[in-house]
């Protein structure tokens, strides 16, 4: 995709940023240069056999303690260990 002023404005809107008119052209050139530097990603081979897993796997298999084990003096549980939501008072 070519990066022009229209693209910059569209991406800026998604990022919830306002790019002034006088700098849109500069931003477009800058982004085009940065994106061009990412072209080497297209040359990477043999990626189809690797399933994307963005977070590096830890050697240990244990997971963090379940939420229910967090110390919380205000927590109320029923006999199954589930959190009990306090009943709401009916509005007058």
């Amino acid at each position: 995709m070519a990066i022009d002023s229209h693209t910059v404005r569209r991406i800026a809107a998604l990022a919830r940023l306002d790019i002034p008119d006088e700098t849109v052209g500069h931003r477009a050139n800058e982004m085009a240069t940065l994106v061009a530097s990412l072209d080497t990603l297209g040359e990477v081979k043999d990626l189809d056999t690797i399933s994307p897993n963005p977070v590096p796997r830890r050697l240990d298999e244990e997971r963090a303690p379940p939420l229910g084990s967090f110390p919380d003096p205000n927590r109320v549980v029923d006999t199954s260990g589930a959190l009990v939501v306090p009943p709401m008072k009916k509005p007058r």
Partner: protein
Amino acid sequence: MDALVTAGAVRMGSRRALDVVNGALRRAEAMADLGAFIHLMPEHARKRALEVDALVAANRNPGRLAGVPIAIKDNIAHAGHPLTAASRFLDGNTATYTATALRRLEAQGAIVIGRTNMDEFGMGSSGEYSSWGATRNPANPERVPGGSSSGSAAAVAAGIVPIALGSDTGGSTRQPASFCGVVGLKPTYGRISRHGLIAFASSLDQIGPLTRSIRDAAVATAVMAGTDPLDSTSLQAPMNMPNIATPPSAKGIRIGMPRQTWSEEMPVHAPLTECLRNLESRGAVLVPLDLPALDTALPVYCVVSSAEAASNLARFDGIRIGVCQTRDTVSETVIASRTEGFGPEVQRRLLLGTYALSEGLSAQLYRRANAARIALRNAIDRAFSSVDVIVTPTAPCAAFPMGSRIDDPLTMYQTDIFTVPPSLTGHPALSVPAGTLDGMPIGLQLIGPNEDEASILNLGMVITGR
């Protein structure tokens, strides 16, 4: 003076914590021109010092780091104190809780004397992107200290504090350590809890210490390390400590040198190679490596880190968090607040990250980058079947002149070309001072097997002698 020596003196009663802290505060004030600190906390520091001295007087355990003055990067939460990530967007923001890593240091008697300057939200490699002014390199004030943990590196290099906390996403602890001539450690991903660290890229961020000695880095990391129920990515397995009491030996250590990172055209090649030849003369074995996957690391990092940053910084809307620029509608208020609040480098990365995640491009860029990341991790893990430690220059250059790269983002990003691979793969990595280039410090990066900080810390002690 090293942290362990200071703590030993305070524990023995031969030095008062209050005197140690007052000394650090005086040095910080005397060197204010460095721009290392955003916020000094003399009242808090002296109060804590008196508490430590009272424990010593009562023959109670004041902690392993009793009375040691420390500094923390301005993206690490400390309850009741400012937390701005060096951004005007968070001007006036106060932390409501304390980061787990900092709580553990304070529990061992360490005393925070101030919050250090940084590149805004951790995005930068020079220390010039702070909303509160640039930091300068203590070795030469006309040069950058590196980034993004610029103030922490400068504070340690200038001798203000023996330990400062940084955060490392793509090299932000190691690169300024190299530029300032101090030790900087990025532990294994998950070794230190990220609870209380303002998120930049959550799959990459790690808090790490900057120190003047390997021993101090080892003890500080061990104190901070450990599983944390408030961070589900924190490691369960404990950290193996290096042997800091007995000087280690280089004999038999297999040191891998990826040819992709040792070009003779690099200015740092000659002085760092001399350091490696010295290790070889002391019994280490240098092993050439070929890791072509390293060539993709910087583009992968640019995509992954900016995409995750775009997601993490979406919470800053000027309504729930941040300085509000009120307009007629909610949408206009959010846009104005973010545009006014974020600096140019943050906006640049948000645009790149949003672009990488946008419809029609996410498969081409983001998913491809993550797959290449796994391939890089597998390649480095395979390399560790032949070597014990992998070494690269920490940065391809020494500290550059202030203002020389601020308008050239691509060249600025190239400064991190060697630090981003272990950030992407999660392996522990350490920068140690290993020589000079044109009078400026340069660092050698040691990369260790996953969850094995001890190997790189031991080799670091062989190189530095401390």
